[in-house]
């Protein structure tokens, strides 16, 4: 007996989001860190900043911390990020 059953998911994905063009180099660029404020981010970002500055030669590293670790970045951080060449953000504790 054939059953006709329906899709429980969103079939249409959101349009309009494309990855930013990839940088050919990080040398001389400004990189922003968007931290969720958790304890584990400090050592990680400290070491990452050292690598970026000493080994790769970025122009600047900007640290910003979200006001709520489980909500998207605050609007002012998103606005500021437009001035960066690259951003590091993600999930972690």
């Amino acid at each position, binding site marked *: 007996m054939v059953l006709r059953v329906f899709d*429980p998911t969103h079939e249409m994905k959101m349009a309009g989001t494309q990855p930013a063009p990839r940088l050919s180099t990080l040398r001389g660029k400004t990189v922003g860190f968007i931290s969720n404020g958790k304890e584990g981010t400090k050592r990680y970002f400290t070491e990452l900043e050292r690598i970026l500055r000493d080994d790769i030669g970025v122009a600047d590293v900007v640290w910003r911390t979200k006001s709520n670790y489980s909500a998207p970045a605050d609007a002012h951080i998103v606005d500021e990020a437009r001035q960066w060449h690259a951003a590091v953000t993600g999930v972690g504790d």
Partner: protein
Amino acid sequence: MDAATRSTLNSKFYDVDDFAAAQEFYHSNGWTDGLPIVPPTDKAVEACLEWALMPPDQLIGIEPVRAQPITAEKLAINAVMAGCLPMHFPIVATAWQAMMREEFLLHGVTSSTGGCAVLVIINGPIRLEIGANATFNALGNSDRATSVIGRAIRLALINLMDVRPGGIDRTTLGHPGKFSYCLAEDEEDMDWQPLSTMRGIPEGLSAVTVMAALAPRQIMNEWTRDPKEILETFAAEMRANQRHYSIYGGNYAIVIPKQLRDIIQAAGWTKRDIAEFIHERARVRRGEWADVGKGAIVRDRPDKIHTALDSPDHLLVIAAGGPAGGFGAVIPPWMGSKTKAVTAAIGACVDCEPPKG
């Protein structure tokens, strides 16, 4: 379906050979919680929509962070999969409306490593209509209605918000409430006001409250008839949560079954009295963290007092559970006050605002 609600379903459909084939099809697509599902046929889905008087494309709400629209049709498909009958669907839809309120922080609570589930508490006449059992096994498999309603919540999260383990859902541990976490309040056997009324819904209306919740922590105190001593045990469990898990204040729920409830009620205590007592007693000194291996984060504020509740209003007191046993339950929040419990009337708009965004 009458003319006012007649509409064809808009979702993509698939033809599968039989019930068993439907299982493998849905499992292989990642559309289940690991348990068998009820195949969502058009007849079953349309029956839910007809019962709720909703056209398929009715917008239940928009999840604010990802701007994800949730339609009645998609919610009904997931509700059918969970095993919901049409009479269960209005509760599922209302729970989702409440979950999409900005203060609930739906994206945050469902993606977090903290691993909470959505606790759903049902009040009002609808409990009796659907056969929800607020007594034995209130926090377990008490009845068909609460089991499938809770499950529908989770399936819709999986399928409509991609809340899958390792995907959007970064939960480290989680708890069994992520299968289903729904109970009804035992309004017929209490002197108190229903939870929904305490939270602003006019008495007599059916309502649902949603809370981002950790697993229940069972307490026991059957050796006293003093309400303060009984409630001190609840408060002690809340203090333990503050020490062992999160010190920050938020919505806590406490479930008081009949044996303890009768003692507290006989002494004339109202839910407000309970909340005020718990608010005073459920608090810890930050320095206590050092006793449980967390000395590193006490820092220079060992004497700072942290309350489990920012105010007595943040305690959800729920009358439920079987008739015997000096047990109770404390249900902690996901994480402090970053999320707030939301209560919504079913089938009535008590405080309507246009959808945001």
